Each structure stands twice: as structure tokens, then as C-alpha cells.
């Protein structure tokens, strides 16, 4: 299997995530203009979706490294996911 085929899953995932984020923001903006209180919650959900997209892609990359037997790179990927999650946890608990 060449590397282009290996990354086609990531490409599909990116397409889905991009459309999900764009649709979420396109809905959130008019709702915010119509009803600020409700709209702001939608804006937060859209932002959460955008931020999650990076974690989802990292999850895919970690699985890709596991499949291809690249242990060090996989550990580094998992460390990035852990760092982001830890920073969320630490900031929330301050």
C-alpha cells in the first residue's frame, strides 16, 4: 500500500470535519444575531467542534502510526493529545 492510499482516510475525515465546522458556524451566526443568549451557546459548540477536529485528526494519525509500526511517532502523537487534554483540565481546575 503506498502512502497516498494510507492517507486517504485522513483526507476523508478532513472533508467531513471541514463541512461540519462550516455548517455549525453558518447556523450559529444568524442564530446569534437573532437571539444572543441561545446563539452564543451555538458559537461555543461550533468552537468546540473546531478544536475537537484537531484531536480527532491526531487520533487518526496515532492509529496510522500504529498500523505502520512507527512506535516513537505514535508515542509523540499520543503525548500531544495528552498535553492538550491536560491543559484543558488544568485551566478548568484553576
Amino acid at each position: 500500500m503506498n502512502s497516498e492510499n494510507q492517507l486517504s482516510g485522513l483526507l476523508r475525515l478532513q472533508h467531513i470535519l471541514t463541512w461540519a465546522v462550516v455548517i455549525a458556524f453558518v447556523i450559529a451566526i444568524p442564530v446569534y444575531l437573532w437571539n444572543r443568549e441561545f446563539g452564543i451557546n451555538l458559537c461555543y459548540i461550533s468552537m468546540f467542534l473546531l478544536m475537537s477536529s484537531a484531536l480527532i485528526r491526531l487520533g487518526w494519525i496515532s492509529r496510522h502510526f500504529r498500523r505502520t509500526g512507527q512506535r516513537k511517532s505514535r508515542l509523540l502523537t499520543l503525548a500531544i493529545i495528552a498535553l492538550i487534554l491536560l491543559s484543558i483540565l488544568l485551566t478548568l481546575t484553576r
Partner: protein
Amino acid sequence: MNEFLMITSAFVSGLLGGLLGLGGGVLLVPFLTLVFFMPMQQAAALSLATVMANSLVSSTEYLKSNLIDLKLVILFSFFASVGAIAAGVIGHYIPGNYLQIAFALMLIHATILILRRRDESPHQRARNLLARPFITIGISLATGILSTLLGVGGGILIIPASYLILNYPMNIARGSSTFAIGIIATAGSVVYLIHGTLRVECAGPIMLGTMAGGWLGGLLGVKTKSGIVRPLFAILFVYLAIKMFLGGIAYEF
């Protein structure tokens, strides 16, 4: 702030950034601070959110062309995320005028890069990952810190580092940088979001405006002669750098 004005300014900064292939952040932060008088930290946080969105959209094209090296992405993203999270925490304690002065210096650096940029032939050099580990780690950390504090993608550091230090071909350096900055920006943005610095109600219009402008700028950039565009942008960047620098000093005294 008027949503229509926000979308328009984000569209213009995305368009101009797309023409140069620099992303919208380099021009969005001066727009928000100089035109809308937004505090530097808030402008940086908003710009960083647009970097996340732009990276998601534009790295897809690089993935299609198989121009992303995931090992390079992960190597840069790991150390840069450490820097980004640290910067997200300390960013609140750094006075806005210092950040404005730092941004002015970064604009001067970007100007030099624009004027010196050459069109490289693809696959011209051999790959050499981890050739100079300490320099790579240092640049990654600096990228994370600068991108979070100033709200720029960090491509102006990652691309030259990948190309000149790690000997990656220019097109793979660009593709990998585009992907990596999305992850780095996420690491910085989560801290800004939880701290309340990131105004999510402004993020939507700005992101959509920048994405649309960046898309059009990218299309126009292919057709426009870079020899004409670059000096004009260099003048604009120097002007903005002077404005930001003077704004930073005026705030101080």
C-alpha cells in the same frame, strides 16, 4: 462590534494573506487592533482561532497532493504545543503594548521573507529528519510561543526551518507546516477559550470571512505576478509594523 464590518475586514485580510500564501493572521491582528481597537490579547486569540479553521481547510489540498509528512508534523507539533500552552497561560500577564511591539518586529521579519522568497523546484533536496535536534526543538518551542502570543500561524518559522535546517523539499515543508499550525493553534486556543480571552461570538464571522477571503486570495495568487504584488505588500507590512510599533510605544508612555 458590527458583524458586517468584522466579516468584511476578515475577508480583506484573508484575501491579502491568501495572495501571498501567508494566511490571514498576519493582517487580521493589525486590522483588529488598529481599526477596531481590540485589545492585543483578544485579537491574537481570535486570529489563532482563524488559523485553526484555515489549517483545516487548506491542509486538505496538500493531503490530496500527498505533500504532508506526518512525522514532520508530529515532531513540530509536540514541542510547539508545549510552547503554545505555556504562552496561553502567561499571555494574560504580558502587557498588550509589548505584544504590539513584538508583532511589529514579526511583521518586519515577514516583509524580509516576502521580498526574499524564491520559487523552489519540488523534491530538490534529501530528507534529513532530526538532523539538528536542538535547533528543531528550539524552533518548535519558539513557534508555539510566538503563534499563541501574537495570533499568527507560525508558518513563517516552521517553513524556513523545515526547508533550510531539516532539508525538506519546499512543497512538503509548506504542506506539513499548514497541517501542523492547526494543531499548534488548537493547543493555544483551548487555554484562551477557557480563560475567556477568545470571544466566540466574534470568531464565527471572522473565521468565515477569512476562509472565504483566503480561498479567493489563493485563486488570485496563482494568476497574479508575484513580482508586482510582493513589493506592494512589503510597503503595506512596513506601514502596519510602524503603526503597531508606535501604538505599542504610545500605550507605554
